[in-house]
C-alpha cells in the first residue's frame, strides 16, 4: 500500500521534471540559509557535556566592594581570587573540581632561538579538567596527580598546535618551550570545537585552547599573567605575586562536579560558611553571596548582554523568514503542477479511487520533494557553516587557538540534521496542503468532458 503511494508520487515527480527541480532547489536554498544560521544559535546554547549537565557547576563568590556590584544587576564577578580558589582546592569537598584560567604564551621547539614564536591560547588548569570536560585525546592523556603535585612541567597540546609543531605526529614525550620554560608533552587532543568556550566565557572571542599546563606550575613558577582579571578598586601591584597572590583580584575560574542534590546542598552550605568566616576577617563586604551555576545557566548569564547573542538571534529570525519566502514561492508552482494533472485524477476518481488516496499520493509527492530539498540543503548548510564560521570568530587575534581552528562541521550535529529534515518535511507538507486540497476537490465531470 505504502509502496503503491510512493510509486504514484515518484511518477508524479517524473511527469514534470522542471517544476520538481525548482521545488527541490527552493527548499534546498531555504534550508541551507536557515539551518546555517540556526546552527550557530544552537551551537551557542549547546550542552558541551550533556550527560553531566545537571552535575557540573561554576562557583561564584562575590568579593566586590560594598558600594557597587561587579556588574548590574548585583552580579558577582565571573572568577575567584587565588586565595579562595586555593581554599576550595584544599577543602576538596566535590567529587571533581577544576581551577583554571586563560593566558597567552609563546611556544617554540627547543633550539629554535631567535625564530618567531607561535602565540598560543593557553589554559592553566588543574588535572581534573580532562576528566570533567572530557576533551577527545588523540595521543596520550592528561597529567597525573604526582606530576601536578611535584610541579612537573608537563603539557597537553591541541591538534592545531601539534600539526604546526610536529606535522600531526604522535608527539607524546617530546619537549616544547613555553615562554622561557621547557615542558614535556604528555597528551595531544583531537579536534575539539567549542563555540562558545563554555568553561571560560570571560571573553566573547575565545574559541579554543591549544596548550594546557598544570595550574600550580602556572601560578607558582611560571607566573603566567591571566588574560582576564579584575579587582575591586585599584590593582595591588604590578608583579604577579602582589597583584594576584594575596589580593582581592579575581582571575581563577572554578568548576565543581556534584553528582547529587545532597552533595550540592552540602557544597553550598560549605561556601556560605566560608563566606561567613571570611566576613569576620573583614572580607566579602557585600551581602553574602555564593552561587553554584549549572553550565546552561552560566552560558545564559555570560551571553545575556553580549553582542553575539542579539546578532545571531536576529539572523535566525531572518533565516527562518527566508525559508518561509522560499516556501511561498512553491505554492503557485504546486498548484499549476497538480492541476495540470486534473485530467488523469478525474479518470481515477471516475473509476472509483477515493479522495483520500488522491490526497495521499500528492502529499507523498510533496514530501519526497521536501526530503530531497532538505538533504541537499543540509549539504549546502555544511558549506555555509564552514564559510561563515571563520568570519564569525575571525575578530580575535590571539594567535592559534584564539580564533577558529576547525571548519565548524561539529555545529551540524544530529539535532541539527533532524531540524533540517524536519523543517523541510514540515515546510513541504504545509505548502502542499492547499494545492492538494484543490486537486482533491475537482469535479471529475468537468475534466472528463475535455479529455
Amino acid at each position, binding site marked *: 500500500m505504502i509502496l503503491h503511494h510512493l510509486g504514484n508520487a515518484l511518477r508524479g515527480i517524473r511527469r514534470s521534471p522542471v517544476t520538481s527541480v525548482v521545488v527541490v532547489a527552493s527548499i534546498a536554498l531555504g534550508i541551507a*540559509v536557515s539551518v546555517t544560521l540556526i546552527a550557530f544559535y544552537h551551537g551557542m546554547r549547546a550542552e558541551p557535556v550533556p550527560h553531566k549537565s545537571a552535575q557540573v557547576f561554576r562557583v561564584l563568590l562575590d568579593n566586590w566592594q560594598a558600594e557597587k556590584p561587579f556588574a548590574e544587576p548585583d552580579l558577582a564577578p565571573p572568577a575567584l581570587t587565588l586565595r579562595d580558589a586555593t581554599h576550595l582546592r584544599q577543602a576538596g569537598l566535590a567529587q571533581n573540581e577544576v581551577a583554571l584560567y586563560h593566558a597567552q604564551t609563546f611556544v617554540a621547539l627547543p633550539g629554535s632561538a631567535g625564530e618567531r614564536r607561535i602565540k598560543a591560547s593557553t589554559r592553566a588548569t588543574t588535572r581534573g579538567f580532562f576528566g570533567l570536560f572530557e576533551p577527545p585525546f588523540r595521543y596520550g592523556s592528561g597529567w597525573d596527580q604526582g606530576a601536578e603535585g611535584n610541579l612537573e612541567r608537563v603539557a597537553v597540546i591541541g591538534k592545531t598546535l601539534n600539526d604546526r609543531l610536529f606535522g600531526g605526529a604522535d608527539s607524546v614525550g617530546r619537549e616544547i618551550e613555553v615562554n622561557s620554560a621547557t615542558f614535556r608533552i604528555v597528551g595531544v587532543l583531537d579536534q575539539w570545537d567549542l563555540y562558545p568556550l563554555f568553561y571560560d566565557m570571560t571573553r566573547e572571542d575565545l574559541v579554543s585552547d591549544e596548550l594546557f599546563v598544570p595550574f600550580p606550575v602556572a601560578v607558582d613558577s611560571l607566573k603566567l599573567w591571566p588574560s582576564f582579571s579584575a579587582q575591586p578598586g585599584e590593582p595591588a601591584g*604590578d608583579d604577579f605575586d602582589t597583584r594576584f597572590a594575596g589580593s582581592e583580584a579575581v582571575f581563577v575560574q572554578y568548576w565543581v562536579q556534584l553528582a547529587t542534590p545532597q552533595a550540592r546542598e552540602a557544597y553550598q552550605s560549605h561556601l556560605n560558611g566560608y563566606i561567613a568566616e571570611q566576613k569576620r576577617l573583614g572580607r566579602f563586604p557585600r551581602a553574602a553571596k555564593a552561587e553554584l551555576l549549572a553550565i546552561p545557566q552560566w552560558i545564559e548569564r555570560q551571553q545575556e548582554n553580549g553582542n553575539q547573542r542579539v546578532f545571531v538571534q*536576529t539572523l535566525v529570525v531572518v533565516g527562518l523568514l527566508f525559508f518561509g519566502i522560499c516556501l511561498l514561492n512553491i505554492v503557485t508552482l504546486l498548484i*499549476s503542477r497538480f492541476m495540470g494533472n486534473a485530467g488523469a485524477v478525474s479518470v481515477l476518481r471516475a473509476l472509483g479511487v477515493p479522495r483520500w488516496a488522491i490526497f495521499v499520493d500528492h502529499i507523498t509527492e510533496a514530501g519526497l520533494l521536501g526530503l530531497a530539498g532538505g538533504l541537499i540543503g543540509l549539504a549546502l548548510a555544511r558549506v555555509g557553516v564552514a564559510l561563515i564560521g571563520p568570519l564569525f570568530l575571525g575578530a580575535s587575534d590571539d594567535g592559534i587557538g584564539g580564533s577558529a581552528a576547525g571548519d565548524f562541521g561539529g555545529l551540524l550535529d544530529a539535532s541539527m540534521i533532524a531540524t533540517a529534515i524536519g523543517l523541510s518535511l514540515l515546510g513541504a507538507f504545509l505548502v502542499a496542503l492547499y494545492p492538494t486540497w484543490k486537486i482533491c476537490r475537482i469535479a471529475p465531470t468537468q475534466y472528463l468532458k475535455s479529455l
Partner: protein
Amino acid sequence: MEIVPILQTFRFNKSSLALVIVQLAFTLAVLVNALVIIDAYRTRLDMDSGINDRALAVVEVEPIDHAYFSDEGRVRNDVQQDLEALARLDGVAGVTQLSSFPLSGEGAMRSSWPQGGVKEKAARHTLYAGDAQALSTLGLNLVAGRAFTAEETDWSRNPTAGSSAGVVIVSRALAEALFPGAEAVGKQLESGDGKVETIIGVVDRLPGRHVLMNTVRLAAIVPARPLNSLHYAVATRGEVTPQLLQRIDAVLLQRSAERDVKVDSLYQRKIGSMHYLFLFGSILGFISLLLVLVTAIGAYSQASYSVAKRIRQIGTRRAFGASKLHILRYFLLENWLATSMGLLLGLLVANGLSFVLTETMQLPRMGMSQLVLGMLFIWIVGLLSTLLPALRAASVPPAIATRAA
C-alpha cells in the same frame, strides 16, 4: 489603461496575490535593512575623523614574559631604543608612544566634568596618554593653547589614571560639551577620585577609541609615557605600505626576539573594530540577494501560470483587435500593480525591522535613499522577470480563439 479590469482579476486570485505581496514585503524589508547596514559601514569607514588613518602604522609589542613590566629601567630603555629604531626607518615621518590608538576599538574611557560643576553633567570620553610627540605624529591640529612640553611627559605605571603634571589637552567637541560657548583653555577639569587637571590646549579633532560610538568625537590626551605597555604609532610619508609594515616588524624583532610584534595600518585596525557590522551587513546582503532571486523566480512562475491559464482569453482579445503591445502592457501592468502592493506593505515591515535593529544593535535608522533604492530595484527585477511570460502572451495568435477547447 486596464487598471480596473486588472484589479478585478485580482479578486479571483486572492490567495496567489497575497503570497506575492507577503513575499515582496519581506524581500524589501531585508534588502533595505541590508542597505542601511552596508551604508553605515561605508560611511563610518570613510568618515573624516581628523586623523589620517591610512598614513599611520600602529605597533603593539608584547613581551613574552609579563614579568618584563616589573623592570622599569628595562622598559624605559626598550621604549627609547624602539622609538629610535623606528624613527630611523625610511618613509617614517614621526613616532610616538601611546597608551592606546584612536579608532582601534580599544582603550580607556573616563567621565570628566568642570571642576565644582555637577557630576551628572559629566561627559564620557576616550582618554589617551602619550609623549610630547603624540600631537605631531597623529597630525592633530592645535586650535587653542599649547602642546605638552617634554618635562610634562613623565613615565607612569598607570598612565590613563592622569598625568603627574596635572594638564590635559581635549578635542574641540569635548571642550564644547563641557564648556559650551566658553574658552576652555585654562579651565579645570575634574574626573574620578577628586583628580583635577588644567586644560592647556584644544585640538581641532581627536577621534575616540571606536568609530561606532556616539561619543567618537569626545576625547582627551594626557602627557604620560606608559610603563605598562609597548604601543607605538608611526606616521608615514604617504600611505602605509605592506613593505613598511614588514620593515617595522623586522626591526623590532631584531632588537629582541623575546617578544611578539603586531603591526597594522590604523585603517586596518578600524576595519577590524567594525568586524561585526561588516559580518552582519554581508550576511544580510547575501540573504537579500538570494531573496531577490527567489522573488524573481516566483514572479516568473506566477506570470507564466497566469499566461498559460488565459491563452484562450488572450486569443479572443487579440481577435477583437487588441495589439501585441496591448497584451504585453496588460501583463506588465498586472505584475507592476501586484509588486507595488507588496512594496507598500514592505514599507511597514522594513520600518519595523529597522526599528528592531536600531533598538537592539545601535544601528542607524533607515533613510529615504535606501528605501527608494530598494523599491526601484525590486520594481525593475519584477518587470524583468515578467517580461518573458508577457512576450509569450503577446505572441499568442488570435486564431486560438476560434479553436475548440
